[in-house]
């Protein structure tokens, strides 16, 4: 059984936000419009957190793309009252839209604020719905939604493999954000396979996790900026 994980190399990341849009496009994430945006209701499964330190001219800004970190010990799963969110055997923290009752307890519990809520039934102009991805269910009003590591892609990759009577190769399944990253700063793969690129990079001395001290054991690893290490 695979254990899916991601590595984001901050030294290569250029904060170009391609991953964001790729995600929105792949997962039919609605744009909420100005009024809702002003009220802080933009849904963006993957966000780029920016942090600026210092005063001109000694300033420093760090950009950190934050998908759902798919913790191995997810605080959000613990609190869900109806099994709408759970950690599946392959480590994907799933959200079952049709089960969610919208209590938003998981959002309150997630220290990464990686979950989003459908405050309305967001309406998209008819013509634009043509651009929707038929593989992904469009969430309805009043449910929590989040990054799924594009699990629908996993489904289809598996299916393709099964149809061809073979095992699925790890590289057949890649989330949309990783797929499009222009500077190739994102890696995705099977953490259980010690030779997979994510496992190797995960061992790099540059590796760290977001809010590591909370013990949520995220499966998204970051590589901090700086010199390349002999390892790689």
């Amino acid at each position, binding site marked *: 059984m695979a254990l899916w994980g991601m590595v984001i190399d901050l030294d290569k990341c250029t904060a170009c936000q391609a991953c964001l849009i790729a995600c929105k496009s792949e997962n039919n994430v609605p744009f909420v419009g100005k009024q809702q945006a002003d009220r802080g209701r933009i849904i963006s499964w993957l966000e780029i957190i920016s942090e600026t330190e210092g005063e001109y001219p000694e300033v420093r800004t760090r950009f950190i793309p934050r998908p759902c970190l798919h913790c191995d010990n997810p605080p959000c799963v613990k609190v869900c009252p109806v099994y709408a969110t759970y950690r599946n055997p392959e480590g994907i923290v*799933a959200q079952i839209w049709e089960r969610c009752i919208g209590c938003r307890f998981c959002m309150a519990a997630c220290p990464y604020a990686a979950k989003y809520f459908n405050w309305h039934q967001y309406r998209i102009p008819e013509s634009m719905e043509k651009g929707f991805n038929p593989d992904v269910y469009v969430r309805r009003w009043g449910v929590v939604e989040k990054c799924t590591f594009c699990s629908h892609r996993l489904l289809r990759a598996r299916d393709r493999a099964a149809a061809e009577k073979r095992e699925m190769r790890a590289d057949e399944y890649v989330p949309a954000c990783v797929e499009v990253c222009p500077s190739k700063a994102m890696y995705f793969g099977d953490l259980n396979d010690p030779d997979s690129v994510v496992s190797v990079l995960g061992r790099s001395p540059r590796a760290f996790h977001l809010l590591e001290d909370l013990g949520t054991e995220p499966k998204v690893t970051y590589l901090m900026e700086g010199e390349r290490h002999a390892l790689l």
Partner: protein
Amino acid sequence: MKVGLISSMIEGKRHWLLLAGIILFVLIVVFFFTTVMGRGVKQPIQFNHKTHKEQGVECSTCHQYVREQTFAGSPKIEVCWECHEEPITESREETKIQQYAKENREIPWVPLYRMPKHVFFTHRRHVAVAGIQCETCHGKVGEMVKPPAKQLKTLSMSACMDCHRDTGADNDCLACHN
């Protein structure tokens, strides 16, 4: 007032009130089932599965993608055309095929069995790989002389999950939901 009503029922007077209530309830239920639940589909052509099956036509002959794709696919006009280019019976339905062919438009078959959008179902895996019979989910469509107006079997999540459990298939939510 309500109280009065109830009381009268209790005290056994004016039983008809009680009766009326019950009848009303029944009517509502019937209405509900006839209108909301029992909305059948009408196919453009009164296709006769039975005869075709008897002619030895496989399901996959017309639903051609059932083994290759996630979807089974409805017969395209040219598929019908292969046999029915020349009328081989004097059925009125058959003439419709010529009709559509003349206007060269696809036959607007109406989907009957559909999955909710948050479910991913793949025919090829169930049919080609797992070797499940069409009847298992679709019922004995093959023995019908008319296209079914309702699903012969209702596809419920529990049904899926039971089968998955029994066959030892993956029963994880993400195995089907997207």
